[in-house]
C-alpha cells in the first residue's frame, strides 16, 4: 500500500516537474519574443517554398496523386505540415538533452528525484504544443489564401487519432535517438537515429511524392517508418474522404508502432543514462 502511495506521489511530483519545465519554456519565449517570431516565420517560409514548388509542377504532378484527391499542392502542403510536427517530436528528446548537457543543467536536473524525466517530457510537451499551433496556423493560412481541397465528408476524428499516434511514434523514435547521446557518446551535432529517419522519410515515405513512383527496390524501406502509414491514412481521410475501413490497417500499425517505440525508447534512454553515470557522468566537464 505504501508502495502505491509512493508511486502516486512520485507520479504527482513528475507532473509538477513537467509543469515547471513548461513554465520555464514559456518564460524563455517571453524573454526572447524575437526568436518566437523567427521560428514562426521560418515555418511559414518553409511551407511557402513547398507550396510554390508544388504549384509550379502541379500541371505535371496532379495525375500522380489522383488517389489522394488529385491535387498535388494539397498533397504536399498537408504532408509538410504534419511532418514538421512529427519532426519536432522526433528531435525534441535529443536536442533537450544536448542543450542541457552543454549548459551544465543536465547534472543539476539529476539532483532532483524526477528532474531528468520531467525535463525531457516537459520540454517535449511545450515544443509539441508550439509546433501544433504554428503548423495549424500555417495550414489555415495556405487554405485561406490558395484553398486546399479538403473532402467535405472527411472523418476528422479518425484523422486526429492518426495524428496523435503518429506523433507518439515519432517521440518513441526520438527517445531511442536520445539514448545514443550517452551510449554512443554523440555529444555534438546530430544523432544517428533521427538523422536516418529524417533522410529516409523525406525520400521514401511519400512526403513529397507518392510512394508509387519510387523505384521498386527502395520501396520496402518506406514500410519501416511510421510516417508512411500516417501520411497515407491522413491524406486518404482528409483529401479523399476515405471510409475508416480503408485506413484501419494503417492506424492499427501506427498504434502498435507507437507503443513499441515508446517502450523501447524509454527503456534504452534509462539504460544509457545509468551506463553514463557508471562511466564518466552526465556533466560536460569530467
Amino acid at each position, binding site marked *: 500500500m505504501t508502495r502505491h502511495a509512493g508511486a502516486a506521489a512520485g507520479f504527482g511530483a513528475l507532473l509538477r516537474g513537467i509543469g515547471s519545465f513548461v513554465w520555464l519554456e514559456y518564460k524563455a519565449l517571453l524573454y526572447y519574443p524575437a526568436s518566437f517570431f523567427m521560428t514562426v516565420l521560418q515555418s511559414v517560409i518553409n511551407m511557402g517554398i513547398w507550396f510554390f514548388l508544388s*504549384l509550379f*509542377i502541379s500541371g505535371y504532378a496532379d495525375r500522380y496523386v489522383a488517389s489522394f484527391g488529385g491535387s498535388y499542392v494539397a498533397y504536399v502542403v498537408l504532408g509538410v505540415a504534419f511532418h514538421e510536427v512529427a519532426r519536432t517530436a522526433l528531435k525534441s528528446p535529443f536536442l533537450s538533452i544536448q542543450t542541457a548537457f552543454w549548459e551544465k543543467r543536465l547534472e543539476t536536473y539529476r539532483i532532483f528525484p524526477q528532474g531528468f524525466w520531467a525535463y525531457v517530457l516537459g520540454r517535449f510537451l511545450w515544443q509539441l504544443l508550439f509546433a501544433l499551433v504554428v503548423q495549424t496556423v500555417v495550414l489555415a493560412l495556405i487554405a485561406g489564401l490558395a484553398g486546399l481541397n479538403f473532402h467535405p465528408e472527411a472523418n476528422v476524428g479518425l484523422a486526429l487519432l492518426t495524428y496523435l499516434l503518429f506523433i507518439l511514434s515519432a517521440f518513441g523514435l526520438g527517445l531511442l535517438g536520445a539514448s545514443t547521446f550517452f551510449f554512443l557518446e554523440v555529444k555534438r551535432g546530430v544523432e544517428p537515429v533521427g538523422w536516418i529517419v529524417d533522410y529516409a522519410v523525406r525520400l521514401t515515405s511519400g512526403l513529397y511524392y507518392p510512394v508509387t513512383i*519510387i523505384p521498386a527496390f527502395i520501396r520496402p524501406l518506406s514500410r519501416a517508418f511510421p510516417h508512411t502509414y500516417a501520411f497515407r491514412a491522413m491524406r486518404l481521410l482528409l483529401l479523399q474522404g476515405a471510409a475508416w475501413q480503408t485506413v484501419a490497417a494503417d492506424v492499427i500499425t501506427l498504434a502498435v508502432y507507437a507503443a513499441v517505440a515508446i517502450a523501447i525508447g524509454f527503456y534504452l534512454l534509462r539504460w544509457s543514462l545509468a551506463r553514463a553515470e557508471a562511466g564518466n557522468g552526465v556533466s560536460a566537464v569530467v
Partner: protein
Amino acid sequence: MKGKAPAVTSKTVLTQLASVWTFGIREFRMWRSYRMNQLMWICDILMSSFLFFMIGRMVGDQSAELLGVYGANYITFILIGMGVNYLIATNLHDPFARISRVYWDGTMDLYLLSPMSIYTPLVGLMARSVIDDYPRVFFIVLFGTTLFGARFALGHIPEAILFAALILIASFGIGIISASTFYLFDFKRANEPVRFFIQEVMAALVAGTYYPVTVLPYPLQIVAALLPHTYAYDALRRLLSPGADLRTPNLVLHSALPTLTPIQVDGLALAAGCLAFIPLGLWLYKAGIERARRSGTLTRWQ
C-alpha cells in the same frame, strides 16, 4: 634575438595579406580536424539531389514548356539553384557566426590588441568557402551528371565563372552586414535577423532556387528583383542549361531595361549589389566595433 629593429613599422599591405593567409591556414586546419564530418554533407548533397530527381520524374523529360527560358532539364535547373546556395553558404552564414564566437570566447579583445586590421579575421573567412563550399559545388555537379541525369551546356564557362565570382562577393557583403549587427544592434543570439530575412526568408521564398520567379505573384517578383540571388540564378541557368534562351526577358528588371540582354542586366544588377553591400558592410562593421568600444561589449567578460 636580433637587436636590429625591423624596418617595417606599420603593417604594410603585404603583412596584412600574410595575416589573412594565416587565418586561411587556420580555417583549413579546423576543417581538417573535422574531416570526417565532410561525409555528412556528401550524404546531404546525395539526398537532396535524389529528392529532386524523384520530383523531376513526375515532371518527366519533356519539360521545355514548364521551364521556359531555362531549357528543358528540370534536374539541371534545380542543381544550379542548389549549387549557388552551396557556393555562398559560408560567406552568408559564417561572418556572423565567427564574430559571435570571438565575442563569446573573448578573442575579439586580442585581435584588436594587434597591428592587424579589424577586417582581417573576416576576410580570412573567404578561405573557408574555398575548402568548404567549392567542393560541394563540384560534388553536386558530379552526382547530378553521373547519377541523376543532369546535363550542362559548356559554351559559356568563362561568363559563368564571372557570375559565380560576382555572387560570391555580393554575398560576402551581405555576410559582413550581418556580422556587423552583432555589435551594432547587440544581436547576441544564435539567430541574426538581417541574414535571416535576406537569406532564409526573402531569398529562400522568392529568388527562385526551386522554381522560376515567374510562378510567383507579381508583388513577390518585385521583391525578388531586389535580391542578388535572383540574378545569379537567372544568369547561371541561362548560361549553363542546355537549350536555354539568352534573349527572352524573364525578370522584372529585364522588362524594365529592354535595350540590354537579360545576361547584361543580371551582370549589372550583381555588380551594383557588390558595390552597395561591400562598402556598406565594412562601414557598418567598423561602426559596430566603435560602438562596442564605448559600451564595453567587445567581449563577454568585463
